[in-house]
């Protein structure tokens, strides 16, 4: 009858709304979107080629305060676990890559700094905050996502990296 038809309509519209609202977000346990980016020093780097190793991908920018605070902490983690097989990739989203180069040199970053100037990779990873850190296991699956940075986060990264390296 008429009321039943209304209910059907509402159900259909709600489903449609939910479908459009749902974003194909990168979430834990989902495969990490592959990308190929130019590195500041050296050749292009492809994420899929790191399969078999634990990868930490950090999105940062020179204009973001918490990002600048986090970078030295990431450098320390890189030095600590590099021999154990950790790959640390810093993806920079500045409009001007020269600023990224300047800061990387000033901080003495030894891990690869990749340039995502046109923000394509950032869009694919759909971050909700800056900085954003993704921990990817040896099978290329995202295991944890960290939004933002506050003092003490590096301890969480440390614990998670150790867990992933054991696998």
């Amino acid at each position, binding site marked *: 009858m008429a009321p039943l038809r209304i209910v059907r309509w509402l159900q259909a*519209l709600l489903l449609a709304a939910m479908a459009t609202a749902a974003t194909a977000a990168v979430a834990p346990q989902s495969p990490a979107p592959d990308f190929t980016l130019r590195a500041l020093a050296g050749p292009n780097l492809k994420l899929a080629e790191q399969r078999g190793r634990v990868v930490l991908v950090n999105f940062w920018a020179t204009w973001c305060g918490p990002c600048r605070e986090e970078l030295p902490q990431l450098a320390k983690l890189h030095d600590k676990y590099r021999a154990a097989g950790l790959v640390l990739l810093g993806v920079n989203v500045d409009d001007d890559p020269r600023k990224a180069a300047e800061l990387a040199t000033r901080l003495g970053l030894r891990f690869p700094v990749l340039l995502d100037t046109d923000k394509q990779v950032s869009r694919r990873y759909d971050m909700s*905050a*800056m900085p954003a850190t993704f921990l990817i296991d040896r099978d290329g699956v995202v295991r944890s996502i960290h939004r933002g940075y506050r003092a003490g986060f590096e301890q969480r990264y440390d614990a998670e990296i150790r867990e992933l390296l054991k696998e």
Partner: protein
Amino acid sequence: MRTIPLLALAALLGACAAPEPWVKPYERERLADPIMQLSGAATADKHREHVRVVREGARGATGVQGGGCGCN
């Protein structure tokens, strides 16, 4: 009859999925620039506001905040 306005309302509600933030955190480079700051040095702003408030009848609504880098 009554079904049509109800359907229209349902369609409207269906179409209005909650809007997603359209400026992503990694697109906020220009907004984080000091040139886009809404407020400057606290002492200077306080003095300027004081000079105006003493001479004018109007006061208030000068508070400014926010903007910037989308960090954290």
